[in-house]
């Protein structure tokens, strides 16, 4: 019998948005509404398919499910191999949820630009296709292909449809990522040549390298992922890109695209190079810690809302980095959960900021002030998104941050304690930002702006509602997600060769 798990979910999930992108790109330029609707419906269909896959996934089953494999380049043993573990699955879900919302939120983003509206939505769908591909690939070569190609649609989204300094930001984004990608290319070639001339992840898992080789290969992959994530000190492209990108694209950039970095570390660096991972772990923890504190301090000082949100993300990626390199199941699960929750929370924050910016025509904090009096509902959503972002108990990010911290505390108290300071700084930058934009006396200039007289439209409410709902739901009941993540993280930690410290229980005397 052909079970539901034999259905080629992953190749369809990867291919469908690409087909949609081609369709949308060739829709007549004169009918932008048609292009928007087609793109929205298409992305919702993809989301439905992803939901079906979620249901069909067996959380307690094999590590990799929905495996598909097709011949591609036999000479190099590179194949179209797709398979997901729990970590990849939740990321696919996150993409599938975010993209329709982003499309809806970006409804009028491209109208004001002189460029083609259908192309904007086609680029969003093309980006979705490559993002799904990068998480679904189980072949190192295929992963690399998606990893690099992903840059192209994002480059044009920033460069063609972004705000001020978009050219500079787009080029900086592309060059940073490309440099990282080429480091990885060298490592991929090395992995292939020294690991038995295959790209199959499963087979490479058992490849043996000399200590030195393994460290160099690890470094090649890690630099690429650290730039992508981004970790301090490779982060300087993100505030520019996040600040210049249209709000919807920025939500995808920070919410999903950057997760490829942390996902790549979990999927490629740790299992393939376990010895090197353990050797480099203290350094990785150090740059993650610096990232938390440094980016939080910079966020406090930002006057540009989008750049501010970008800096908060860098701080959050520090937490994810700590969770990964603590090498405990708890911290690892927390890190993966953090990847999901951060996508939701920061995605929401970016979208809401985008709504403010669209009304005011400026992203500067100093151009707002007392906005809550004009648009109370929108200000309320900003406040909620901010609270979620600073990991208030009851919202989803709290769970993940807490897991990361206690998971780290069991093995490395110092790191956990320093990281906790980041929470305080998070409260500072979020609350201060909310206060300066929406609270206090009304900025007189603000009331003369027409846009600020309209509170949230129905479309905008539809955009934020699912995200708020998910953030609350996962804040109170994260079990469905952690159940899926946990086995995959455990398997990864086994690959690294680390076991959780045994709980310190005293033998009861009889």
């Amino acid at each position, binding site marked *: 019998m052909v079970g539901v798990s034999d259905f080629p979910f992953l190749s369809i999930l990867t291919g469908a948005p690409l087909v949609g992108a081609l369709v949308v790109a060739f829709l007549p330029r004169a009918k932008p509404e048609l292009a928007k609707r087609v793109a929205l419906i298409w992305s919702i269909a993809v989301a439905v398919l992803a939901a079906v896959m979620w249901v069909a996934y067996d959380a307690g089953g094999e590590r990799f499910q929905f495996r598909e494999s097709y*011949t*591609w*380049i*036999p*000479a*190099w043993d590179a194949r179209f191999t797709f398979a997901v573990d729990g970590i990849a699955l939740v990321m696919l879900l996150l993409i599938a949820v975010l993209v329709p919302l982003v499309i809806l939120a970006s409804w009028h983003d491209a109208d004001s630009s002189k460029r083609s509206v259908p192309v904007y939505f086609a680029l969003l769908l093309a980006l979705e296709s490559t993002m799904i591909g990068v998480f679904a690939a189980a072949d190192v070569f295929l992963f*690399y*292909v*998606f990893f*690099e*190609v992903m*840059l*192209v649609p994002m480059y*044009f989204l920033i*460069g*063609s449809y972004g705000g001020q300094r*978009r*050219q500079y930001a*787009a*080029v900086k984004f*592309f*060059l940073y990522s*490309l*440099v990282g990608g*080429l*480091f990885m*290319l*060298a490592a991929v*070639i*090395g992995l*292939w*040549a020294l690991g038995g001339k295959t790209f199959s992840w499963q087979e490479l898992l058992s490849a043996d390298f000399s200590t030195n080789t393994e460290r160099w290969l690890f470094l090649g992959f890690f630099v690429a992922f650290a730039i992508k994530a981004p970790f301090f000190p490779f982060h300087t492209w993100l505030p520019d890109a996040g600040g210049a990108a249209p709000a919807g694209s920025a939500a995808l950039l920070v919410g999903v695209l950057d997760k490829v970095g942390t996902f790549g570390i979990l999927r490629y660096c740790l299992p393939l190079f376990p010895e090197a991972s353990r050797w480099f772990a203290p350094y990785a923890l150090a740059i993650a810690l610096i990232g938390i504190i440094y980016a939080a301090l910079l966020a406090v000082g930002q006057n540009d809302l989008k750049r501010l949100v970008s800096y908060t993300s860098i701080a959050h990626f520090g937490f994810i980095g700590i969770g990964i390199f603590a090498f405990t199941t708890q911290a690892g699960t927390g890190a993966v959960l953090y990847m999901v929750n951060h996508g939701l929370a920061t995605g929401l924050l970016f979208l809401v900021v985008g709504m403010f910016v669209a009304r005011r025509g400026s992203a500067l904090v100093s151009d707002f002030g007392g906005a809550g009096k004009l648009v109370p509902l929108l200000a309320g959503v900003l406040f909620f998104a901010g609270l979620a972002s600073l990991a208030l108990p009851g919202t989803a990010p709290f769970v993940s941050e807490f897991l990361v911290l206690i998971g780290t505390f069991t093995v490395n108290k110092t790191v956990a304690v320093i990281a906790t300071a980041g929470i305080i700084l998070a409260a500072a930058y979020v609350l201060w930002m909310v206060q300066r934009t929406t609270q206090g006396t009304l900025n007189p200039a603000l009331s003369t702006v027409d846009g600020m007289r309209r509170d949230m439209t129905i479309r905008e409410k539809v955009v934020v509602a699912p995200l708020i709902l998910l953030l609350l739901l996962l804040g109170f009941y994260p079990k469905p997600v952690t159940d899926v993540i946990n086995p995959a993280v455990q398997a990864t930690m086994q690959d690294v060769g680390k076991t959780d410290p045994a709980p310190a229980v005293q033998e009861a005397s009889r």
Partner: protein
Amino acid sequence: MQDLQLPPIDYGAIAPMLILFGVACLGVFFEAVLPRAARRSTQLVVALLGLVAAFVVVVIQSDTRILTAGGAVAIDGPTLFLQGAIILLGLMALLLVGDRSLEQGGAFVAQAAITVGSDADRRQATRSQGATEIYPLAVFAIAGMMLFVAANDLLTMFVALEVFSLPLYLLCALARRRRLLSQEAALKYFLLGAYASAFFLFGVALVYGFAGGVQFGTIHDAVRESTQSTILLYGGIALIAIGLLFKAAAAPFHVWTPDVYQGAPTPITGLMAACTKVAAFGALLRVLYVAFDGAAWDYTPVLGAIAVLTMLVGAVLAVTQTDIKRLLAYSSIANAGYLLVGVLALSKEGLASTMFYLVAYGFTVIAAFAVVTLVRDADGEATHLSRWAGLGRRSPLFAGLFTFILLAFAGIPLTSGFIAKFAVFGAALDSGEAWLVIFGVITSMLLAFPYLRVVVMMWLSEPGESTPTVSIPGGLTAAALMIGVVATLVLGVAPAPLLDLTTNAAEFVR
């Protein structure tokens, strides 16, 4: 008197070359007897038919592995593969050469000797049909290149070198626009080319002194067994390599490249960038792999240093270019470096990957020059980069195609450029040449910048007053462009058939 024994000749095996030399002679004959009005179409059709016929014979002969003509010519896997490549790429270049829709009379001037700007020159510009001798000249060059990659002794190789070089010197001087620049380029190319030929010939003499013969088999045996002074051998290798590396445009023998690429009529630049590169590297491969393989330990470090220098010079100087043809020239120099990396793998994989790279690069570079012929204003081609600003707005189709071509040059996945780079780097790393791969990756990062700058110019800048229009290509140019772009895409997405073909062909006969 002793009877001269004529060596047996396998006419079937050398038929492709015979056909093309015959067609070229026929072209000269037509030039003498046909009325002016009928010449151009006859010449073009005969030349194209001759190339197609030669290609068919190459395909029929594809299993031949023999030495013929007294061991002067080797028809083996690499020969046939490279001959096929030269014919196909030559065919594309000839399509560009034959196009007259872009400019009245085509890109070539009938009488280059008439003083620029004189009355006679103006009369010529309005009336004359343009040169038709270019077709037999181009066919002579292509046939010479085919003999060059088949030559199995150093004297045949020298004759072939001259046969294909002399027509190219002439063709370079025949540009209709910017004629002085064109003639200067031709003179430069001729003088430096003559020096390079002299070096080559001197090298042949030294090697003859060492080995007592010029056939590659004899040299191979002598390298292993001869008791002659090795100074003769090393001097010979060095001088022969200088002659070949000059044609391949490797640093420090590259200085002619930017000037000649810029000055020559653009279709001829395409012919040189694609076909000359194939021929030069084909000959280099045969000389190093068949004749001097016994001395590999001695020449690898030197050629490795040349490869690194070539990559660096090409990449670094490409960054500063402001003219698209010069930019492509430096890019072609850098690519010569990548090709040398493949050559220096000195293995079957190295041979196969270098041949793949030659074909992949050839298709892409001719397509690139096809686009250059299209971007024009009243003074002919607008090659200054600043003039390309905003081209994406004026004609999205051609800007899109050119962007794809540039991404292929930059080695982004899903283009042939990526697969080709991967192949040569993989082969080199497999042979333990990790340092070459590292330099290759670093220069790829540098080289991405100039390509990206052009993309930014085209898409993200506003069109200015002086942005030229893109001419609608005639059928011939459009065909060449489409063949190049489609080949770049197909070789990037499904490279397996060509990779298999190169692997099967990758064995020299000695």
